[in-house]
């Protein structure tokens, strides 16, 4: 996935000279995960900036650039360090188009690695995507694999509104698939049916796709046919794909690693409740992280949703 994101950045920077990168250690070092490796060398120091260590400064100045017609792609080194930048994201980036009645807009991408499972320090593993989902004016995109990461990031850079782009660092180097050199985009706001099935709908995104797939492989041996949806974007959310699937299966399990309360799963359940309640054969199940601080890594495997918990949830809704 690292290479796919790097390729998207490289191609978009070539296509549009207004695309610039900034962040901590993104230039000479190429980022702590090497996502931006080689780009400063290729495009120069006036396209790729190593900034002072200041998340709010990075996002705030990016906003000023974006309203002046640049397309900054800002990197926050870890999503757990984005909170100082909330001031600028919540109070400005998300509101500029509305506040100015469209006179100004903010074509800004804020990339940040999120998710656990890599035995990291505190603040380096959390999944707080639902905080962004709650903010009007943002789009929140979370790819699950390299192919999607390239297509979605390309769309995000070309988008005229601010996009939070959360990269599951657990799959940065874990999943390999063919990523075409061609210029392609994947639309923001559309989910993907990864696999069709009839008995139960599994909804996941980011690093949880792989865990969901493992669970599906296990239950399908017992003849439970699963439909797997990769949300790809959590804001705006693709109701249509979710509803069509749930209408077919009547059963649904949502998997995410962020905390349970007020999470993406809660939102999906609310939407199903609004529109699809009578189509359901069983209550919707959520397999999520807990309302605890993301633990130091000795305990992280207990926190993260994994095959056994997902299998359990699938069986619960199927046997209801």
């Amino acid at each position, binding site marked *: 996935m690292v290479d796919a994101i790097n390729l998207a950045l490289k191609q978009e920077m070539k296509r549009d000279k207004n695309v610039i990168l900034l962040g901590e250690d993104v230039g000479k070092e190429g980022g702590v995960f090497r996502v931006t490796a080689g780009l400063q060398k290729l495009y120069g120091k006036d396209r790729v900036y190593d900034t002072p260590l200041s998340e709010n400064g990075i996002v705030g100045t990016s906003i*000023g650039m974006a309203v002046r*017609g*640049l397309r900054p792609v800002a990197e926050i080194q870890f999503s757990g360090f984005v909170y100082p930048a909330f001031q600028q994201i919540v109070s400005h980036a998300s509101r500029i188009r509305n506040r*100015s009645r469209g006179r100004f807009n903010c074509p800004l991408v804020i990339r940040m690695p999120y998710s656990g499972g890599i035995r990291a320090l505190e603040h380096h593993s959390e999944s707080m995507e639902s905080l962004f989902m709650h903010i009007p*004016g943002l789009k929140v995109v979370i790819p699950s694999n390299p192919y999607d990461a390239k297509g979605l990031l390309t769309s995000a850079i070309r988008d005229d509104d601010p996009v939070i782009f959360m990269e599951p660092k657990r799959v940065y180097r874990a999943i390999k698939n063919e990523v075409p050199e061609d210029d392609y985009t994947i639309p923001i706001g559309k989910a993907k049916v990864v696999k069709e099935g009839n008995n139960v709908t599994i909804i996941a995104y980011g690093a949880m796709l792989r865990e969901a797939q493992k669970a599906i492989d296990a239950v399908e041996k017992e003849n439970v046919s699963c439909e797997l949806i990769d949300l790809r974007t959590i804001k705006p959310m693709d109701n249509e794909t979710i509803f069509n699937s749930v209408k077919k299966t009547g059963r649904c399990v949502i998997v995410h690693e962020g905390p349970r309360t007020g999470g993406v799963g809660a939102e999906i359940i609310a939407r199903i409740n609004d529109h699809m309640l009578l189509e359901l054969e069983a209550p919707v199940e959520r397999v999520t992280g807990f309302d605890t601080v993301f633990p130091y890594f000795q305990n992280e495997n207990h926190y993260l949703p994994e095959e056994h918990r997902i299998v359990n949830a699938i069986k619960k809704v199927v046997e209801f």
Partner: protein
Amino acid sequence: MSYIEKNDPRNGKVFRVLDKDGKVVNKSAEPKLKKEDLFKLYEYMILTRVADEKAIKLQRSGRMGTFAQSSGQEAQVGIALAMKKEDWLFPSFREHGAMMLRGMPPELFYMVFMGNEEGNRMPENVNNFTVSVPVGSQALHAVGSAWASKIKKEKDCTVGFFGDGATSEGDFHEAMNFAGVFNVPCVLVCQNNQYAISLPVKNQTATDTIAEKAYAYGFDGVKVDGNDVLGLYVIAREALEKARKGNGPTLIEAFTYRMGPHTSADDPTIYREDKEVKKWKEYDPIERFRKYLLKKKYWNKKYEEKVLKWAEQKVDDAVKKAESTKLGIDDMFKYMYKEMPDELKDQLNYLKSMKTSKGEGE
């Protein structure tokens, strides 16, 4: 040596051209402005004050919401005059004088405080950004804007305004740091009006001046008599030229006084003495400049009447326009994104249906 360099705030220097009686105290610095530019400064200071006075009446009679006046700080128009049309201004919420001089239609000022976002729809050919309410947050946008000019190799500069309270916010320090590190063509203006709501500036910072903070970020700061419109003009012009030549940012501390309350919801008698306000009245920026124009024989009663009539007419027209601009339900939704997502369309349709069933139409 430039006036900025000559007036290092760490040596207790305060730059001014005019004293409180409108007398030129710094002959060599007196700008050679054309008569019409001097008139423009005077007229926009008057317009700003007349606009505020009207706003107070509107607010008291319930025709306008809470608003922030700039009474006492009208000399800000000197900075606006020093800017080129292609330069960018990033205001806080007390810069309608500077914004109007740069071409903002006065009705926008009223609309913002009448609760109508249309007040932030700056005309396409006016390079003013929108008001920014979270204190100090816009300083970073100003630096980003200046940085964009540098990246795009455009010749414009950016001026970012904020108040003394802002200098305690992280955004201010981050903006100063980025401005210095990337040497951007930016002029940061702190309107030190002595109070952040009730907190006097001496409790806001332990430094003697705000201007001297610039040196910690590697660039110049200068303290200017913020009630001297010519002083602000001269320093702003110099700082802008310096920025345009690639010689980096400047912090200007405009040492002024907020004659009125923080906003119309504030009662300053709780936290400051009348005698202090009276003292500052002697330094009034408009009175001072009027005396200067009188000495130059540019001002007379007839001119004053003409200016007042012009300002009142402009304000009346602005209020009419502002009050006749109404918002629909759609206006709340349609500017959230370039294209409205389905989920937002659903919410809009729902709200419309509720209005219909309530018998309100849209």
